């Protein structure tokens, strides 16, 4: 009987805690991608400033309201602009940032390929 009780408690508690952990992970992931605007070079996750702490509360609230990660980013983008995101989307201001690595990779590949052909 005692064992059954224990078993029941474990079954009831276990899924709850895992859900909680999932939410925490998500919140940490989101706040790591948000720039703390008043502390240079720190993410909201790292910072303990008034602004960052409020932002964490807002992220929690939005998650509870059922916002997805992208919706939360979108929300902060309309409030503070692209600058608040560490991982900016592809647009006319950031296309160089996105295309440069691909370009360098292609050109580098071409150079290596060419030098191989030449050696033969």
């Amino acid at each position, binding site marked *: 009987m005692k064992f059954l009780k224990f078993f029941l408690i474990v079954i009831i508690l276990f899924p709850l805690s895992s859900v909680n952990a999932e939410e925490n992970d998500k919140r940490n992931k989101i706040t790591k991608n948000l720039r703390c605007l008043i502390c240079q070079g720190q993410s909201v996750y790292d910072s303990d400033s008034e602004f960052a702490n409020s*932002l964490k509360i807002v992220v929690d609230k939005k998650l509870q309201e059922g916002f997805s990660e992208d919706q939360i980013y979108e929300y902060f983008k309309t409030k503070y602009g692209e600058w608040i995101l560490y991982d900016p989307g592809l647009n006319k201001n950031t296309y160089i940032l996105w295309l440069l690595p691909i370009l360098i990779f292609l050109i580098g590949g071409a150079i290596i390929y060419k030098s191989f052909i030449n050696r033969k």
Partner: protein
Amino acid sequence: MGALLVFYKKNMKNKILPFSIIIIFGIIFFIFYKGLEDSKIYIPDFNTKKEIPVFNTKEFFSGENVKSSSIFELDKVYLLNIWSSWCVPCRQEHPFLMNLNLENKLNIIGMNYKDNLKNAENFLKELGNPYKEIFIDLDGTIAIDWGAYGVPESFLIYNNVIIKKYIGPLNQELVDEINLLIK
């Protein structure tokens, strides 16, 4: 002439590689050099014609629930001022708010940001109360809804639209500008 062309082609082929590397590095250098000039400090949009957010909160003195729609009416000019008793620049700008209130051309609304209510009341007793209404933002989430990121910050509002945003304490110059804008 033909020999010269062949010679030129042969030499050019060897030069393509270093030449292209120099060009690539030139481009990369240029992009990063330009990046150096960009400001790395957050500069908010000052002229945002955004609708004001909708929120529920508590009134400062009575502690009663208030809605944003009952604070901001259409066809009136409001100045929303985010302040706090622990914020030193707020003390600096307070006389300007008092003067603006005396001129009586706009309604000044206060947002008490992450404050101890007792301290906040003492602050107002000491320096005067220029606010027509004050509401509380205890955890700073309403300020985020407004796109604010510190204290003090002021928003000029007309018809539920933010006309202008002032970051940092107000001074005589900015007060003159506000007077010019609401004429």
